[in-house]
């Protein structure tokens, strides 16, 4: 705002010093917004700046702002460094999670909009409710479910079967955990997306002779796409950063990228390396998000242009 005021002042060539001073002063709005802006800067920007600064510090040191080196980044991109494996696992698992969730969440979202009727609110609550319980607690719950002599194994044995499958501490169960954890993040944008498809359009298409599949392909899916894509993007970004599933359910059968970052910050005590890794991953996710969001032209999809 101050900038605008200044720009205008310079263009109009203020006549008197008083006017000039006036133009330079912050507008009331800008002054009121200042505390919030400062808070935002401290709360949001400062940590980012710190991470960025640390990523250029001497490896294994705390010489932030006092040293500058590209060593951390160089070591990440060193071909002998296997950190790309963790990255590949994270991205791969995130993609799988998104694919699985897209398939699982769509029917539920459809049901919430068109089938469950007055039960829809209740069903939504069922999906929201777990979010009030800490993720780790829920995942430990699943460990108790899958573990030997746990809920599943025990029940099956009690029923006379030979016991449950040995799934705990495998990559498969990690994927299961991720799909479980991020279901709401796919479901709700998707539900919203489907809710944006006017009932009339579906009726109209049907009235024009279209069958269910045709309507789904030509009307429902394209119109719900903004919600679906936002759900996918959200799920992907969250899943790329997921660690708890791989640790708790997966027993670290795979090491994911955010776990690697965590190791660098804790056990390795190599904050600069961890920061560099965090910067690389953040840049990757930010770039991906920007590309996706620019492709995801909401206006066009909703036909506003």
């Amino acid at each position, binding site marked *: 705002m101050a900038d605008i005021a200044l720009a205008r002042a310079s263009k109009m060539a203020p006549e008197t010093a008083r006017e000039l001073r006036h133009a330079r002063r912050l507008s009331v709005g800008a002054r009121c917004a200042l505390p919030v802006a400062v808070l935002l800067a401290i*709360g*949001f920007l*400062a*940590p*980012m*700046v*710190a*991470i960025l600064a*640390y990523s250029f510090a001497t490896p*294994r040191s*705390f010489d*932030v*702002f006092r040293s500058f080196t590209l060593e951390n980044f160089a070591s990440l991109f060193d071909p002998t*460094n*296997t*950190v790309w*494996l*963790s990255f590949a*696992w994270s991205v791969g698992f995130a993609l799988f999670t998104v694919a699985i969730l897209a398939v699982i969440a769509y029917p539920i979202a459809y049901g919430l909009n068109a089938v469950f009727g007055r039960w829809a609110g209740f069903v939504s609550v069922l999906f*929201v409710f777990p979010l009030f319980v800490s993720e780790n607690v829920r995942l430990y719950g699943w*460990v108790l479910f899958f*573990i*030997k*002599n*746990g809920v599943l194994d025990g029940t099956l044995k009690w029923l006379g079967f030979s016991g449950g499958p040995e799934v*705990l*501490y495998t*990559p498969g169960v990690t994927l299961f955990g991720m799909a479980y954890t991020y279901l*709401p*993040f796919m479901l*709700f*944008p998707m539900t919203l997306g489907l809710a944006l498809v006017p009932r009339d359009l579906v009726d109209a298409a049907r009235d024009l002779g279209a069958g269910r599949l045709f309507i789904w392909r030509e009307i429902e899916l394209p119109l719900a796409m903004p919600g679906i894509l*936002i759900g996918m993007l*959200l799920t992907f970004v*969250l899943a790329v950063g997921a660690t708890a599933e791989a*640790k*708790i359910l*997966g*027993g*670290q*059968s*795979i*090491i994911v990228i955010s776990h*690697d970052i965590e*190791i660098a*910050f*804790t*056990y*390795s*005590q*190599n*904050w600069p390396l961890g920061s560099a890794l965090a910067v690389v991953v953040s840049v990757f996710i930010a770039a991906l998000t920007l590309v996706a969001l620019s492709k995801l032209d909401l206006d066009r999809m909703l036909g506003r242009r």
Partner: protein
Amino acid sequence: MAGISRRSMLQGMAAGAGALAAGPLLGTGSALAAREKELNILCWEGYNSAQVLDPFRSKTGATVKAESLTNDPTMINRLRAGEINTWDLINVNNPWARKVMLPEKLIKPLPKAEFEPFFAKMLPEFKWPYKWAMSEDGNDLLGMVQRFGPYSFVVNTDKVSRKTAEETGWDLFNDPALAGKYGILESDDWNVFNIFVVAGIDPFKVHTPEEMAKFEETAKRVFKGAKLIGDIASMNQALISGEIDLHLTGGTYSVSPARADGHPNLRAITPLKGPLAGGKGGISWIEVTSTVNNPNLSPLALDFLKYVQAPEVAHTVAFAEGTFNPVAQMGNKACFDLFTKEELDAIQWDSLEEEMARSVEYDIVPDYDKALDIMNAAKRLRG
């Protein structure tokens, strides 16, 4: 929905990164603040429990903040990163005080006269002047000792007998037949020690490239063969349920809660022999609590050190929530008598002395960083 999650995500990020950013900035303004009624402790799990802190809080009326971390270098790095003005006490394993923190001026000596009498009542091996409590030159008292214990590996004796475990020792983890049947308790420095030992190498020395290669090979194989890697709770749960038969890295500190919970078949093992100095089979740890070199140290720091040596409090420390351990004050009858039979059983009192005797004491690995990098890379190859 999306709004909430994004906000909490941002909060999470801000909180996480905020702590990181605050590191070097903290403490610049607080130097002049009066600290009579304030005490900040950086410690391992146990000292931060309400059972230990609450009586001290009500006795002194002070605000006591204790933060528990599960890693010595992490705690020390907090001081290095500028939090020296924040903390009053730091509780880490034995070698750090004399070998690292004093030379780096992160801690300061204790008044000898005030604290020497406490050592007289400790178990025999802690008699004055106790090595790890003193400076290298033997002139200064650097901290008070309390909890200790052997820390090698843990087995389910229903699956692997104590005898087999003690005799076979670390080679259990070289046995292909046991691949997929063991877990690894995630504990960075201890994992590094243990991989060296499994490789038949003494960890506490500078290693040759051949030894490092052997270390790498062993790390890859041992991590690949692990059914799971996880924290103490996960290990005990997996042992109890039968998912695993044994786990690398662990001892009284980790298994005592499960033993106290009615699983005496789970047992910390110290091998009879191994590649450690003097052919010893295990590694032990002794916690040393020192006063931070805080220019504005809280006067309560010394009070607290004395407070935790009192028999009742020492017993409470031994059985603080989460982990149960022997304490040095068990040499004091007044303290020892407070332990019930079950409690003694949980901390494997029956074999404690011999196991400590079979263990070398925790030390610093000179080429630790290199070994850790190799180990972290090896972990990634699990999947």
